[in-house]
């Protein structure tokens, strides 16, 4: 059983997803527990694999028993293993969280929603675990297709946002496929490790340069890096709360993970620095994304839209950190992929709770929520502090490594941009705290007295509250144990530069 754990991570949610419509025919309310079981099993196997990787090193799993360059293989190293745990944990938490918001937003589509939800999670896990470039494309498309549907069922305007996402997402995937084709024509292989070995001979050909450029362009579109972010704010703002809590943290971070994989595993770092000004471009794109995301997030009055622009800035952190190309910054970037997935999930949980309670997700809807839901807002404060980067939350440490890396690499503008973005985040979140505590005496002073009586406490439902609290706990724990994560896991995947 334990030897088969890598494939079970994918196959269990896949089989459960196939059977969800059947379960839904029998009893609709069971679907929720059905997908919870699937994701819990998947998460359990992820943890098993993670522990095994920590003990014995990289795992190779040949699907169907065919030897790698001919068959498909799963390669799970330290980076994958950690990503698997993060992705499956967030998927599980989001599944727990989704219950009430689905019941409120579209009760009659439960079965189909949960099926697509599970397929989306399967797609994400499949992308992370695979060691084959074409297999990655297939799972990328599974997760994208599921994502299109999950976004399209949202509020007014979601259809157009989803359509934009379909078009732009397909362009991104097509670019990736072209890149894979160009690599295939020069090496004759699709297996990542095999390609990495074969590329050494053909590194200097124009075809490989173009292949890299197209894969990079496709991933930039998929991860919504600054010039290509246009599909993202609309799509994530208009999506239903449960879908945005699953897609927003994971889709962009997994694309960032693929970028790390492509740069450090397939094309070796020597190729990146020797042939193209890629690192410079990435650094400056990251810089632009941070500045732009920070400025745009101040201008928003919609909470979810503000979060989307925060994501734009955070993606800038990650890409810029990789672009700095020194071990410290890369450590920071990889740590930030994980941290940011957790933090963004938490923020979108809060956005969903606000929407559930008030019906909207504008900044003004936070009014007096701190009095009504002290526990939820306590979790929100922890998550917000982590986004700002206050120790001992995890957001501080990844930012610390990034800034240290920027100083080592003499990239002062990037360091300044990081600090600027932290300042902007302070403004953003403290503005919300102010609204939430009702310090805003601007338009009504009468209601203030009445709400102060304390009789109005109405917390979010337990299924929504629990995941938010867990996320805030995870944030604090990963912050405290960040050194352990860095030395035991991330150091193994940081290349020697």
């Amino acid at each position, binding site marked *: 059983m334990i030897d088969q754990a890598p494939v079970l991570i994918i196959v269990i949610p896949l089989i459960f997803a196939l059977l969800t419509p059947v379960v839904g025919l029998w009893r609709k309310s069971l679907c929720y527990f059905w997908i919870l079981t699937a994701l819990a099993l998947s998460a359990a196997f992820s943890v098993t694999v993670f522990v095994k990787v920590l003990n014995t090193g990289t795992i190779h799993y040949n699907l169907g028993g065919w030897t790698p360059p001919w068959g498909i293989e799963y390669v799970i190293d330290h980076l994958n293993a950690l990503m698997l745990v993060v992705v499956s944990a967030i998927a599980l938490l989001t599944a727990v969280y989704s219950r009430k918001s689905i019941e409120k937003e579209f009760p009659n589509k439960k079965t189909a929603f949960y099926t697509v939800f599970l397929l989306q999670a399967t797609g994400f896990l499949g992308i992370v675990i695979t060691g084959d470039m074409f297999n990655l494309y297939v799972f990328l*498309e599974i997760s994208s297709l599921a994502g299109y549907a999950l976004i399209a069922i949202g509020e007014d305007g979601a259809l157009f946002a989803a359509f934009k996402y379909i*078009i732009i997402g397909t*362009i991104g995937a097509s670019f990736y496929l072209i890149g894979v084709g160009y690599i295939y024509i020069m090496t004759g292989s699709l297996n990542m490790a095999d390609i990495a070995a074969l590329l050494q001979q053909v590194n200097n050909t124009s075809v490989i340069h173009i292949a890299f450029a197209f894969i990079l362009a496709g991933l930039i579109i998929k991860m919504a890096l600054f010039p290509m972010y246009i599909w993202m704010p609309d799509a994530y703002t208009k999506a239903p709360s449960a879908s945005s809590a699953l897609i927003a943290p994971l889709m962009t971070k997994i694309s960032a993970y693929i970028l790390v994989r492509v740069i450090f595993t397939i094309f070796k770092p020597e190729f990146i620095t020797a042939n193209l000004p890629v690192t410079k471009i990435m650094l400056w794109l990251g810089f632009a994304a941070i500045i732009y995301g920070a400025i745009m997030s101040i201008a928003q009055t919609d909470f979810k839209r503000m979060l989307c622009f925060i994501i734009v800035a955070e993606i800038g952190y990650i890409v810029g950190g990789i672009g700095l190309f020194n071990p410290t910054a890369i450590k920071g970037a990889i740590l930030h992929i994980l941290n940011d997935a957790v933090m963004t999930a938490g923020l979108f949980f809060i956005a969903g709770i606000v929407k559930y309670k008030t019906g909207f997700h504008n900044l003004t809807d936070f009014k007096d929520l701190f009095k009504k839901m002290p526990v939820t807002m306590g979790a929100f404060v922890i998550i917000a502090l982590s986004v700002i980067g206050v120790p001992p939350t995890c957001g501080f440490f990844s930012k610390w490594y990034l800034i240290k890396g920027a100083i080592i690499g003499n990239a002062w503008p990037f360091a300044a941009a990081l600090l600027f973005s932290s300042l902007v985040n302070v403004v953003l979140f403290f503005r919300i705290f102010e609204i939430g505590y009702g310090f805003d005496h601007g338009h009504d002073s009468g209601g203030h007295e009445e709400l102060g009586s304390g009789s109005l406490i109405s917390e979010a439902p337990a299924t929504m509250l629990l995941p938010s609290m867990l996320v805030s706990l995870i944030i604090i724990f990963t912050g405290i144990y960040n050194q352990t994560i860095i030395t035991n896991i991330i150091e193994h995947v940081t290349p020697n530069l």
Partner: protein
Amino acid sequence: MIDFIVTKYNYLFYIVLFLIGFYAIIVKKNLVKKVIGMNIMQTSIILFYVSIGCKKDGTLPILLDSDLHSHAIDAGKYLNPLPHVLMLTAIVVMVATLGVALAVLILMYKQYGTLEEDELLKRIK
């Protein structure tokens, strides 16, 4: 130049098709035309991959009777089967994307009564 075109004309045709699709996606204002452009673009990639599998004097990737039990099959005699397999998958992906895109378009038409981008943006606000 002529040599370049003669030896690689398939790859050039794929680029032309790809650009036509890309143009339609970017410039056309009608959403159905955008979807058609998307499909042309994906089809062009399929043509590209299938061209990779081409071999001079090669036959279909199905073993001839004479080769069934021979131990030393000449690989040059058959086309490269791998790109064909990959594209079977890509075709399915293309159809699936088309299906979801059309479903979204149907809903949009029901809701807003138009599929022209300018009109739509006005009606959404």
